[in-house]
């Protein structure tokens, strides 16, 4: 039996489904009512992006990514998965990238948004991250703290940010800024797949542009 063909997806997820959902719930318990501020920030970022203020949009997103990097990945997820700290560093790198683009003004799309395809995709991603994911992850019979929220949990944070990247950036900078959010959404989707979870993932629920 060769080494790599013997591995299954489950071999890369070192925790159980119960532990994964308890982590989501604990994030909700510990940081409530920060959710309200985060949702206001996310909504504000969406409005600013639609009004062609991409610098302000990215400046709002940067501290949110730092918070998720530290509070979710470095302080908690890394306890469960040794690779978690590297994802945390990647989230901090994404925050730095947002700040850098905002200050340097690279690839900004500061034209007023019309009803174009990219605008529709960006708005759909933003709304699915702000509203769709919390509703889709709200358990029927469990604690509402499990509902995943922008700025508290990584999946909706990545989804909303991807929408802002689609709306507020253009050219190669758009692709560059999309790498970490897309990669995380893929990893998260595969994790849920490995855990045999019936819960919807943004990977399948919201979708994202490749």
């Amino acid at each position: 039996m060769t080494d790599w063909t013997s591995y299954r997806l489950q071999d890369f997820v070192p925790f159980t489904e119960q532990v994964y959902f308890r982590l989501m719930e604990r994030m909700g318990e510990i940081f409530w009512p920060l959710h309200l501020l985060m949702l206001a920030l996310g909504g504000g970022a969406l409005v600013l992006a639609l009004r062609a203020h991409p610098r302000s949009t990215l400046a709002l997103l940067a501290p949110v990514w730092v918070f998720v990097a530290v509070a979710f990945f470095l302080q908690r997820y890394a306890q469960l998965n040794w690779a978690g700290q590297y994802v945390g560093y990647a989230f901090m790198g994404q925050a730095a990238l947002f700040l850098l683009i905002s200050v340097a003004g690279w690839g900004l799309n500061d034209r007023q948004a019309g009803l174009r395809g990219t605008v529709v995709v960006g708005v759909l991603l933003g709304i699915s991250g702000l509203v769709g994911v919390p509703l889709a992850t709200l358990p029927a019979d469990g604690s509402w703290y499990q509902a995943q929220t922008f700025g508290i949990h990584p999946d909706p944070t990545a989804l909303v940010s991807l929408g802002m990247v689609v709306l507020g950036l253009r050219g190669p900078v758009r692709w560059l800024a999309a790498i970490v959010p897309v990669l995380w959404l893929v990893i998260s989707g595969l994790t849920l797949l490995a855990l045999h979870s019936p819960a919807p993932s943004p990977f399948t629920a919201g979708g994202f542009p490749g």
Partner: protein
Amino acid sequence: MKTSPGTHVKLTRRQALQFFGGALAALTLPTGRLLADPAPMLTKPIPGTGQQLPVIGMGTWRTFNVGSDPKLLAARTEVVREFFRLGGGLVDSSPMYGSAPDVMGYALEQLGRPDSLFAAEKVWSPAGGSAREQVATLESQWGIPGFDLVQVHNLTDWRDHLAALQEMKTQGRIRYVGITTSHGRRHREFERIMTEEDLDFVQFTYNIAYREAEQRLLPLARERGIAVIANRPYGGGRLIKGLQRRGEAVPSWAREAFDCRTWADFLLKFIVSHPAITCAIPATTRVEHMTENMQAGRGPMPSAATRQRMVSFIESL
């Protein structure tokens, strides 16, 4: 009926009737069952030293990686409590298992360190640091002065790690050394190391649906006097869940042959009845499953002929 020093006990009529009624009921029970101890946990000797090890141990992959969540820490502590209550010994973990070593440390802090604990850990290159540093970190995570067994996880950098572990064994820092693999990976290289190196333990996957080790590794372990830990006894959970989902009881011939009552009995007794296997390490998150696992280490074991029948039964499904 409370008493205090210096007071006489006043027995009421109701209490007297309850007492004599209970005594009469007890007399009607079969005396053998009332007096007999439950069958003791089967143990097997570690070939190198003769030290006896209970045949059912405990794995921690995935199940004990719960981080710092107080609710889950308390739940896993209860699983450990049940393990030791029923005579458990070997607990196996790894720095690759996330917070599992810390969770074992938490449980041992809550429960005290049972005499029967046989602490088994691993060194694993991606965790960083030398073998010596990793063992020191793991000791502090478990909150114990030293490990009984340290193994090289999945053969990563095994030459360097094994040399360091042998040195630590010579210095009395650890008692036994070993190597591990799982899922049948790198068996050829594993066999070569078993032949060429001085090992106390080996750990690999062996269960009723995955018996490749019967061809070479198990006979070699017997020949070389190496203790064997069987990992993934339930095939990562899929084997026992698959059997339980069928909704059928264990076959009556298994019940008659070796008092097999549950699918856990069926799967675990198959493993630990192999003459070369020292111990199997099922992992669980639930106390009732731990109780079932530990039951499999007691009572009669299947004979060689019955083991063959068990294999045929599984292959016929």
